[in-house]
């Protein structure tokens, strides 16, 4: 039995880091950088340990379990009313690993930040703590608590360190995107808020402990009413169509590291929430509503893919491709069968690393050229072959090339989908082909062809960026070539999910 303090440390360490950074003087920028880099490394190490230490032969239950009572025996709260309950199952384990990887990468990528990098890292670490917390907490209250913690720093992160951009037909100021992102996410979370109230009230157990609530049998009518609250509430964060518009704009305006963390990890919180709150808490509701989710998810996949083909801005393209790929995740969840849900979780990880890679790479160029319009670039491969290489691999991963993370995930999802909704599966595969279209157009447009002398003085990525890229790429290949460790962990827990056939 592993100690739950491993999980707690993933939350406490970043928070402590943030607290310490408050004390660091504004002008000691390098102290901040080193501190953050170290914290990132430590978190990465812990997450790796947690991932591999999770024992696959124990039936996929919660491990690293820990509970500290927080607020109890007062007002409507019974014993263990609200408790700091932590623990991960095979679904959360890969997510923890993902967070560790991306957070470390983000910390390294943000080395370049000059303007108040102290503030940036404070918010950044709060964000990371929130993400870890959501993935690991087994208490309804704290699940939501950390969920909101993860949304909270977004506004400032984007509005202060982000970038406004002007396009032919319209323009997006960073303040606008930041505000839209924050308000939409919080607005969505009120649905979860209400759902939680309803669940607690209905169960009448006087506790927010998830396992207790899982044990309680909610009546079907109730489940059917409340389930949509959770799914849409979490779905918005997962970029569920048609509530996705915060995502492309937000990514376009956000600074590199935030885009990485947001597209890479935060959107996963939504899908994870659908599993934890939706499927696990209200299985009957899930089985009733999943066809609906499948339809929306299919919209996501196709819609996102088509929208992406029309984009000329790198980040917009990646943003819409994220919408498309998160659609695949939702698709997998909606199948409600083991292959599909496995695939969904795999895709959460895969998409996390590849989209993080994308944003990291784009950032490394954008910082030098201050434009992301792919038409202005040409033949970049001659100037920065490594950049093109990493970008290319990420692109291939996202179009589901075998041997990279994307394929194994999409493959599982499609197997699952074909078992239940073949039409949706066919559309999904079609959209995956569309991915090839826009990814390759982007490459042909801006990486190959005659070199545009305008960028004669562009430099190859810095060593930190290369490090980050290698880190992310490594995880991509690892999962692509040897998915067994992931699937062993995931499938055990997935099969425990109620209502999953």
């Amino acid at each position: 039995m592993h100690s739950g303090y491993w999980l707690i440390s993933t939350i406490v360490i970043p928070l402590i880091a943030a607290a310490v950074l408050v004390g660091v003087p504004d002008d000691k920028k390098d102290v901040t950088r080193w501190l953050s880099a170290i914290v990132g490394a430590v978190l990465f190490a812990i997450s790796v340990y947690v991932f591999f230490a999770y024992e696959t032969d124990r039936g996929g239950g919660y491990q690293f379990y820990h509970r500290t009572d927080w607020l109890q025996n007062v007002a409507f709260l019974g014993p263990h009313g609200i408790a700091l309950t932590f623990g991960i199952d095979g679904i959360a384990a890969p997510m923890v690993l993902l967070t560790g990887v991306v957070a470390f990468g983000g910390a390294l990528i943000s080395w370049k930040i000059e303007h108040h990098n102290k503030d940036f890292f404070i918010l950044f670490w709060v964000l990371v703590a929130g993400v870890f917390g959501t993935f690991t907490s087994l208490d309804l209250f704290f699940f939501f608590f950390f969920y909101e913690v993860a949304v909270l720093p977004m506004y400032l992160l984007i509005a202060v360190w982000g970038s406004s951009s002007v396009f032919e037909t319209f323009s997006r100021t960073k303040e606008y995107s930041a505000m839209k992102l924050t308000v939409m996410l919080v607005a969505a979370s009120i649905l979860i808020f209400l759902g939680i109230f309803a669940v607690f009230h209905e169960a009448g157990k006087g506790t927010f402990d998830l396992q207790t609530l899982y044990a309680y049998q909610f009546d079907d009518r109730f489940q059917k009413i409340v389930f949509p609250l959770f799914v849409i509430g979490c779905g918005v964060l997962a970029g569920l169509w048609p509530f996705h518009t915060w995502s492309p704009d937000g990514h376009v305006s956000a600074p590199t590291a935030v885009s990485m963390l947001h597209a890479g990890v935060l959107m996963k919180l939504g899908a994870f929430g659908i599993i934890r709150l939706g499927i696990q808490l209200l299985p009957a509701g899930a089985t009733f509503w999943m066809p609906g989710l499948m339809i929306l998810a299919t919209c996501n996949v196709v819609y996102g893919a088509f929208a992406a083909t029309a984009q000329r801005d790198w980040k917009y393209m990646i943003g819409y491709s994220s919408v498309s790929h998160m659609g695949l995740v939702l698709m997998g969840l909606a199948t409600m069968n083991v292959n599909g849900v496995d695939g969904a979780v795999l895709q959460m990880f895969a998409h996390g690393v590849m989209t993080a890679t994308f944003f990291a790479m784009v950032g490394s160029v954008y910082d030098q050229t201050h434009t992301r319009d792919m038409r202005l670039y040409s033949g970049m491969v001659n100037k920065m072959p490594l950049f093109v290489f990493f970008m290319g691999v990420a692109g291939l991963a996202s179009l589901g090339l075998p041997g990279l993370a994307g394929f194994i995930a999409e493959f599982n999802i499609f197997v699952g989908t074909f078992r239940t909704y073949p039409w949706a599966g066919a559309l999904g595969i079609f959209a995956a082909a569309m991915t090839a279209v826009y990814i390759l157009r982007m490459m042909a447009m801006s990486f190959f062809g005659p070199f545009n002398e305008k960028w004669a003085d562009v430099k190859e990525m810095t060593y930190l960026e290369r490090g980050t890229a290698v880190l992310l790429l490594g995880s991509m290949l690892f999962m692509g070539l040897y998915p067994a460790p992931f699937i062993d962990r995931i499938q055990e827990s997935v099969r425990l999910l109620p209502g999953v056939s």
Partner: protein
Amino acid sequence: MSQLNYDYTLFIPEYLLAGLAVLVVALDLYVPQVRKAWLSYIAGVGLLAIAGVSLVWINKETNFAHIVAIDNYTTYFRVFFTVTAAVVCLSSAKLVEDKLRHPGEYYALIILSTIGAIGMAASRELMTAYLSLELLSFSLYILVGFQKFDKKSNEAGIKYLLLGAFASAMFLYGLSLIYGVTGTTYYSQIAESLKAGTSDYTFALLMGLVLILTGLGFKVAAVPFHMWTPDAYEGAPVAITAYLSTTSKAAGFALLLRLFGGAFQGVHDDWSWMIAGIAAATMILGNLVALQQHNIKRLMAYSSIGQVGYMLMGVAGLSHDTASALVLHLTGYMVSNMAIFVVIIAWHNMTGTDEIADFRGMRERAPLLAGVLAGALFSLAGLPLFAGFVTKFILFQSVVDAGYYWLAVIATVTSVVSLYYYLQVMRQAFVEKPSEGEGALSVPVLMNGLAFVLMLGVFYIGLYPQQLFDAIDNATSFIFV
């Protein structure tokens, strides 16, 4: 009621307050060489000391002639009000020096008003309640108009005064009707006589309740009795705005809880829906209109109206749980709000403005204040790590448990709206750059200290409220006896 207890020692804290008030005035009059700032320190420290003194009565459940109850509820609010007043006094040192005359009277009035507030929380009898309310109100009428030569301050004063008088007349008429139907002014006896069944005087009872709600609604600024709030807040000296937005509201709620818990809980069905309706209107209007404000004081006024809406939900579904949740939220709101106002006051002292647009570049010019501002605003918006999240969560949950789903829906939606305008303030403070030649400001240590301490308070409530909540839960158990 058999043998009445006339133990005057129960009021030692109040005597001390009165004494402190006199002392401050006297110092101001007879020892002119004392630097005026010292008055604020004396008042502040004195108030804190008195807060300490009032702790003596913890768990001594007793009363004075059944008129005033000295129980944990009273004790809690004694501490609450004295501390609030202390913060206001301390934070207004420089403000008073720059902008106001008669500092002695200024602090004295704040202290005296605290007595009124405590009376409202403590009294279990209508007359006492009414008089305490007037004591608080009168002091506030004066304080709001204290900036004699500022037209806005005068205007705020007259508006608050005339409307206040009007509202309290309504309140009184309500009391008279209640007295008429129950024949007594003791909460406990009112509850008794209502038990008998209200069929033959339902209308009088309802009218009475409506009018009482009018009076108290005016005090706590509930729609549609809120109209004075933004104007008074804007006109008043900024420290007094802080005081208005915390103490006078809190006192109003203390009274509401005691009165409706102690006297009218029996006829819950007759009034809970009224309060529910008022609460809904208040939440919606407060948060919507706040979107349009450009003056920080008016913004805070409307945001406070919104908060009142949330708290009224707790009254609507009044039960021990909701009462505890409400007081918890009230406390969290007080701390966060004071934190914000300390920042506003400090900024006002240094830049002489309270337009939101002029907050620009606060991050550069006064980092700590900016940080506190952000934290406190997040807290008001109800985001985690800060007090607001926990208190709102518990309050809303209790409201749902009381069966008011629809109120909870409105509340959550409007709190998203509120996030929007809080973020707008934050945008000025963090995103916008200071204009040319606006360098770093030297913030007085006192202000920084206050802001910091209050921020710690926000974090305490936000991160480990167990003891506080236990205390509150225990305190509120006394309002129903």
